[in-house]
């Protein structure tokens, strides 16, 4: 009887000895864990700040939700109107193509003529030709704003803009 109880007592695995770790090392380990977590947080934040490429953008989720509320009530087009629009598109296609061709032709003619002029100049004098083919860097700084609907008014008095008075009053 004493033997069996002795045996039961000894069924557990031998216990490990408790190793006393330096408290400094424990502190270091915890600090390392903290740092790791902080670094990961910083990386996530950096990703948030970098912008998505435009191609990946989906339309704003809010607008998708709201689009159904914002549909315009359009009257159905009459058959005549549809035919008229169809013919307009066709005419416009032809017109704009002709316009484009005309402009291209003019530009080609002008460049060809300029080249001819250079050749004629070369026939006359090599020195003048060399001076003519020099680069003119001032062309690069050229800028022009296009023509407007109406011409500028002579001696126009510009109206004052709106502003908030912030002068202190004592």
């Amino acid at each position, binding site marked *: 009887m004493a033997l069996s109880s002795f045996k039961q007592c000894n069924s557990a695995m031998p216990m490990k000895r408790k190793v006393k770790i330096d408290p400094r090392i424990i502190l270091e380990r915890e600090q390392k864990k903290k740092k790791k977590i902080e670094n990961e947080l910083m990386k996530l934040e950096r990703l948030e700040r970098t912008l998505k490429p435009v191609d990946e953008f989906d339309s704003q989720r809010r607008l998708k939700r709201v689009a159904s509320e914002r549909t315009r009530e359009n009257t159905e087009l009459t058959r005549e109107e549809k035919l008229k*629009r169809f013919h307009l598109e066709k*005419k416009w296609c032809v017109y704009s193509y002709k316009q484009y061709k005309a402009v291209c032709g003019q530009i080609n003619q002008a460049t060809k003529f*300029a080249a001819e002029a250079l050749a*004629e100049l070369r026939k006359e004098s090599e020195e003048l030709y060399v001076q*003519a083919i020099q680069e003119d860097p001032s062309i690069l700084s*050229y800028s022009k704003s296009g*023509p407007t609907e109406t011409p500028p008014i002579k001696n126009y008095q510009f109206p004052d803009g709106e502003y908030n008075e912030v002068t202190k009053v004592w």
Partner: protein
Amino acid sequence: MSSSRTQAVLAAIPKLIKHRPSCLVRASQHRNYSQSSAAKTTEATAEKWGLAGALYLERLPVITPKMTRLEQEYKEYKLQQEVEQSLLSEYEITKKEEEERLAIQKKNVLDTPLHLRNIPIQTMQDKEELWSKELAQFTPADRETEADKSNDMRSTDRKLDQSLVLLLKQVVDGKEWWYLPTMNYTPGLSMREVAEQALTSNCGTDLKFRVFGNAPSGYQIKNYGREKREETKLNGHKVFIYKAEYRGGPVIPNEDNSVLDYAWVTPKELRQYLGRTTSRVLNKFIIY
């Protein structure tokens, strides 16, 4: 090459036809009108040309050209289509809501408490009226100017939707003729400087302009008549034309250089002033 051909042709002419000896001499020379390059170079080097530079000073258009009927119709159609295919904007939604609110308020005047009645809400309608009033206070300048009506050829205010070219009336060899500002080439200058001086010497130094690049935009060959050819020993002169943009400033014709008059002319009116050949040459580098 072609000399043998001419000789063959000559040989074929029956000998009964009497030619003057000078005729035959000329025929046997290398004087032919074929396209052989060898003959051309000899001819070219024999010719001498005077050089001149001219400036094509262009006042670019100030206003847009009038739309054609097709362009007008297409523009209206496209604007209409854009509105039809769009969603309602914030402005339109608030406007709709306000209208509904006003309608309800009008219906339920008695239901609203006293302190909330007759509060002037600045509705979108009022705002729109304010804005249209503000717009009405501004009157843009006329597209057709006084110079258009009086047909003043000397002003740059004429025909604002087209470009204008400066032409000078000069006395050359006793005759008056209209042409671009020109100056004969003086050695020591580049062609571009010649063209620029052509303008400043003939029209005063107050003119502001800008030449594009050192290379000419075009050229014109003018052949002299027999008298002048003998006088100057030149076949004619070549004018190299430089394109420039007019930036401002008055044109003061220099009477010392026999400049009598000046005019700002549209490319379509060039033909009246310059004649067929010159206007054809200039049309090559005009871009309408």
